[in-house]
């Protein structure tokens, strides 16, 4: 792995029997968080694999990766889940997609793959045969957790929901109104993006990265491009790094505005929702004027950005943001004074801080529980190192806290954009990569999207083509929080609590 301190990453390979103890030592470092776990095929030895655990070590501004080879003769590894609950879904994914058994894992069920696939379907293995998988006998029905007792009943919801949102299945166990247990079953929009990327050039794979989650197109594209740049040893010009901050914060702005509107919608506060959505639409239209695409697609490329803020557009963006912020503050005041809204959001959907830490929560959902983490500060990328800002924290972990974090971050985003514009030097906004293909090897790229940590772990082969692309979206880290947040709450509050996280189904399912 391309590792030295300047890349902000390090990686070690250990024998398989020392993997768990090495990870345990890393997990005990201050503020350490398991960011992702991924498997890969061994390029040299068919049927052999490797697994990697990636930890965020913010105190050292470092992503530390621990890997171990797995021989073809014994496709298994010791599960870290009993020790690190954050490893749960990552290890379930490794089992279903690679057929590697995490020994000691408490939950043997698949995570993303549904029963239409025969047992033994492992799509990311090199010898996977899609035709055989399509024609085989479907796997047995997925066993949901059963809550039993007098008066307990189940409410199944989805995959097709009432609103204009993505598909997923929620299985509530309730006794009367309060929710005893919520089981979330996703994977409906699984598109096999990681497999599809294999064999493509980085330029071809970029269009896939931008479509992992449409409302995080720029962040996913940015994380992917940074991984390519690390492998190529290329640094985009200073102007490009600042412009990346501008576009990344514009993406955060429109998403946070939409999220805050959604909370108002779900409590029936139509006035508040309408006002926020007007602001969101203004940002989307401005994106199109600045960069040619409302969702900022096709802007970030390896080596820089394709959209320069030429001439007066920087100045007009500045005045646009000033008026946007003034309008936002006015509507925000109305939110905070609306008892009908605040009664519903305060104390609703609480995630305890300990749960957020144990499950490896990221982004505003984690910061709303007081967990101090933000990649822009912990692992600075683009030009964030030269643009100090305040990480926005709340303590209560409820819907109100998540809304407050997003509202405060809106202000920070406006300030970050305006300071980035102040510093914008003359010069190109894009540089070519060094001649030839990027070096073979593995590198990480990351970005703090509006939902939190986007992580791309990219391996290129000697022809410069993608050998493995592991994509960890913030939604994958945060979906389990929702099950915790709704416990003991009443079913009618579920849409509100769900909206306060506003997680991406497509980002989770890929």
């Amino acid at each position: 792995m391309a590792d030295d301190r300047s890349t902000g990453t390090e990686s070690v390979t250990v024998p398989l029997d020392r993997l768990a103890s090495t990870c345990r030592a890393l997990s005990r470092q201050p503020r350490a968080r398991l960011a992702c776990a991924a498997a890969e095929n061994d390029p040299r030895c068919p049927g052999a694999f490797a697994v990697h655990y990636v930890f965020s070590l913010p105190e050292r501004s470092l992503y530390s990766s621990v890997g171990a080879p797995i021989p073809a003769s014994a496709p298994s590894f010791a599960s870290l889940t009993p020790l690190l609950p954050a490893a749960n879904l990552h290890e379930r994914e490794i089992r279903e997609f690679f057929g590697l058994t995490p020994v000691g894992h408490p939950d043997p069920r698949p995570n993303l793959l549904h029963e239409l696939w025969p047992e033994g379907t492992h799509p990311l293995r090199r010898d996977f045969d899609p035709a055989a998988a399509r024609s085989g006998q479907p796997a047995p029905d997925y066993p949901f957790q059963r809550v039993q007792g007098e008066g307990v009943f189940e409410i199944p919801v989805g995959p097709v929901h009432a609103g204009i949102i993505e598909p997923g299945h929620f299985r509530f166990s309730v006794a009367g109104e309060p929710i005893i247990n919520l089981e979330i079953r996703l994977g409906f929009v699984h598109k096999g993006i990681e497999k599809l990327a294999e064999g493509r050039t980085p330029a071809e794979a970029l269009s896939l990265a931008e479509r992992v989650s449409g409302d995080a197109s720029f962040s996913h594209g940015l994380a992917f491009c940074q991984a390519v740049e690390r492998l190529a040893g290329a640094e985009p010009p200073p102007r490009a790094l600042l412009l990346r901050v501008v576009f990344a914060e514009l993406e955060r702005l429109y998403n946070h505005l939409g999220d805050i509107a959604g909370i108002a919608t779900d409590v029936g506060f139509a006035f508040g929702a309408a006002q926020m959505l007007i602001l969101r639409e203004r940002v989307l239209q401005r994106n199109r004027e600045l960069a040619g695409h409302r969702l900022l697609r096709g802007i970030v490329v390896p080596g820089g950005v394709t959209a320069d803020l030429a001439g007066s557009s920087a100045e007009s963006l500045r005045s646009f943001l000033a008026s946007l912020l003034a309008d936002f503050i006015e509507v925000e005041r109305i939110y905070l004074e609306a008892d009908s809204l605040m009664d519903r959001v305060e104390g609703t959907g609480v995630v305890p801080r300990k749960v957020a830490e144990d499950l490896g929560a990221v982004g505003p959902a984690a910061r709303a529980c007081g967990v101090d983490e933000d990649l822009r500060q912990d692992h600075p990328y683009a030009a964030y190192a030269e643009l100090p800002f305040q990480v926005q924290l709340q303590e209560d972990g409820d819907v109100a806290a998540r809304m407050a974090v997003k509202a405060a971050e809106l202000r920070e985003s406006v300030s970050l954009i305006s300071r980035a514009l102040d510093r914008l030097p003359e010069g190109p906004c894009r540089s070519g990569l060094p001649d030839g293909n990027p070096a073979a090897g593995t590198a990480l790229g990351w970005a703090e999207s509006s939902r939190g940590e986007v992580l791309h772990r990219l391996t290129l082969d000697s022809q410069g083509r993608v050998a493995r692309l592991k994509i960890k979206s913030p939604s994958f880290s945060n979906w389990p929080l929702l099950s915790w947040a709704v416990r003991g709450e009443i079913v009618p509050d579920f849409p509100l609590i769900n909206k306060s996280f506003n997680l991406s189904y497509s980002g989770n399912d890929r």
Partner: protein
Amino acid sequence: MFDIIRRNLKTGQVTVPVTAGGDPEFELVGAELKAKLSRLLNGRSLHVREVDAGSCNGCELEITGLSTPVYDIERFGIHFVASPRHADVLLVTGPVARQMELALRKTYEAAPEPRIVIASGDCALDCGVFAGSYAVYGPVESVIPVDIRIKGCPPPPMSILRALLAAVDRL
């Protein structure tokens, strides 16, 4: 709140200045749609059920945008409904993910005839960048009959409005 309401009353519709800058056609197509609907449906709205069959959520972002005050598509008589049982039109996005194929089929079967189907976005038309994946079943028309097709990644609000106008012509 009342300050803003008072000012809004003076401002008038936000739809006018914003769309006049970008897309004056939006108002024209909308007016045509409204006229047709009031003739064909006796004054009731056209009921649209949105189905995400595997999209990246970019299409959903734009479709929800249609209901914001800036476009306010309900004023033309377009109403997004919560159930396929109430739908005149299914607006389907995404390549059909294998794991959504059955749900899409069932949603279609649940809708009353004539159930006009709009395949919305490049992925819905030909799977877009996701073509060739083991996890993708195929374009929308490989699962249910498609009446109207919209290009775009994602299709902008104007394209969706035009497709709805075309859907009314099929009623």
